[in-house]
């Protein structure tokens, strides 16, 4: 006579066990890895933002036929490379990469006010850059006044886009950032890397902790609901490691700290709010079963196959026909990442 033990694990599905769900499963289509709290449909109007991995998501969602909003489309007929270098088509607006939740919160507040900070113009070789998207015009602009005029118009175009969005897909990228001591503004890149001048009296390093990230997520949700109270939030965490850490230690544990913090905050935030969800893109790409195959040779960028695995799982979970969205991009292009510029400074 066999004794059948009665305990919680006895009735769990295969997806709950590592051997069946990970070690014994192909990494490009992990079954039942996500059960959406709310369904995306072909009619959903999606806004995207976040760190550079989010560029892959937005492009894949478009390829899948979903409506990804674009407040600032590129001029018609412009070559894709030129458009991408100038921030077109990467997200739902030309805001560039938004690596931290704090940066997103600050952008939403700026959109609500419509008033850019005139101090946030950086210069390089006589050209002028928007400090909050310094890589946007690689050659810079003619004057500080032009930077601010373009930014004002940018903010004005984001407002109606945000009001239309049903779902806001945000990819958390980094906990490390540099901020302005005076205003508290965080920058997408350290002053002096792309433009501007680093000044230790004016700029401070910050490494956001779990409570700070969680609090910022709450502020982000409140700000988004200020544009559209019905907007739902879908969070992901970028699997792309840090290019460099300024926290004083080795970049590997710094990366793990950052990702663990973001992952925990995103998960807890989604669990606490019915209109927020977390999708495990980070886990799919870093899945040990992939044996690193979803990372490119630099061990940072995600391969087209990795993005495709993420999108297959995402679309399957939402019951959306994969179409072209779940396949590798026909012309895979590296995402535009300001933090990658740091590699130029390594010794």
């Amino acid at each position: 006579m066999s004794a059948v033990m009665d305990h919680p694990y006895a009735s769990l599905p295969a997806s709950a066990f590592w051997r069946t769900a990970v070690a014994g499963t192909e990494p490009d289509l992990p079954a039942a890895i996500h059960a959406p709290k709310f369904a995306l449909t072909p009619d959903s109007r999606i806004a995207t933002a976040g760190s550079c991995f989010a560029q892959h998501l937005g492009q894949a969602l478009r390829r899948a036929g979903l409506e990804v909003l674009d407040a600032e489309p590129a001029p018609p007929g412009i070559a894709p490379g030129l458009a991408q270098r100038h921030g077109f088509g990467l997200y739902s607006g030309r805001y560039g990469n938004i690596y931290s939740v704090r940066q997103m919160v600050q952008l939403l507040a700026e959109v609500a006010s419509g008033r850019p900070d005139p101090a946030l113009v950086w210069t390089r070789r006589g050209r002028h850059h928007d400090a909050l998207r310094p890589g946007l015009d690689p050659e810079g602009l003619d004057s500080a006044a032009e930077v601010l005029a373009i930014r004002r118009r940018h903010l004005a175009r984001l407002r109606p886009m945000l009001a239309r969005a049903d779902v806001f897909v945000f990819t958390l990228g980094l906990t490390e950032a540099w901020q302005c001591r005076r205003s508290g503004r965080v920058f997408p890149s350290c002053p002096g890397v792309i433009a501007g001048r680093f000044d230790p009296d004016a700029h401070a390093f910050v490494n956001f902790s779990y409570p700070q990230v969680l609090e910022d997520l709450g502020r982000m949700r409140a700000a988004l609901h200020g544009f559209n109270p019905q907007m739902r939030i879908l969070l992901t965490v970028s699997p792309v490691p840090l290019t460099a850490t300024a926290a004083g230690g080795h970049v590997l544990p710094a990366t793990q700290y950052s990702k663990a913090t973001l992952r925990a905050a995103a998960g807890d935030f989604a669990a606490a709010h019915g209109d927020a969800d977390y999708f495990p893109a980070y886990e799919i790409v870093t899945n040990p079963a992939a044996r690193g195959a979803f990372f490119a040779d630099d061990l940072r960028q995600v391969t087209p196959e990795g993005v495709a695995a993420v999108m297959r799982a995402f679309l399957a979970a939402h019951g959306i026909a994969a179409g072209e969205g779940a396949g590798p991009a026909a012309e895979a292009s590296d995402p535009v990442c300001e933090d990658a510029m740091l590699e130029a400074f390594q010794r």
Partner: protein
Amino acid sequence: MSAALPRLLVIGNSHIAAPRLAYVADSARWPTHDIDFCGLLSGNIGRLELRDGVLAPTDPAVAAEMRHYNMVRRLPVTGYDAFAIVGGLGWTGSAQLCADHRSLDFPSVIAGDAGCQLVGRRLLDAALRQRIRGSAALRLLAQLRPLGRPVLLLPEPMPSAECTADPDRFGAYVDLVARGDAPFWQAWFCRAVAAEAAPGAVPLFWPDPAREGVAFTRADLMRGALRLSPHQPEPQPATDYAHGNADYGALVMEQIVAALASRAAGAGAGAVAGAGPAAAQG
């Protein structure tokens, strides 16, 4: 004696129908050159390739078109002393670039237009230049340039003001004019064409007598335009506002010949650039 005359090839898209008609009607009016014409539809002049001194189509469809319209399969070009590329620069279509994307110095923006996207001048310039480099005329120029002969670039005519009747095709252009940006954008376009044409090619912009205002061609120089046709004259439809007629073509011929005469007189490329009355607009 005609054998001693310099040889000129006028090559282009459907817009060479106008100068060809003018020349066929009165070739004695331009006695200084032996002139041949070669035409292909739309952007197909950009799908010719120079191989061993011969312009050859790059695919079977263009080859068939080459035979149909020009009765040759390939065109030896080393014997020509000069070339004039007519059409294929895409001035009218360039209005789409600034339909919703403008820099601070656009007259409409200065006047308070708050609806467009504001972008940097360098982005717009890069986009415009990329568009011009990809135009059929510049692609053909890239093939001809190694020959080292003078090349003149002449844009297709500006549309007539009657094009407002076709907003689907000319909406962006009509809007460009209506909001007061046409002179500004046209000067920008001309500068960009001149920069991309150099070295070795000189643009000759629209003949002054053909202009109606800054951005349109006189309608009487467009009505009665004929299609590029190998045999029978075939009129453009009444709803065509983009092609010049034989009178317009005569003005183009005058521009070309005057520019080459200026060059032959030893004035050099700079003088060629100024030979057409409208060239200075660039």
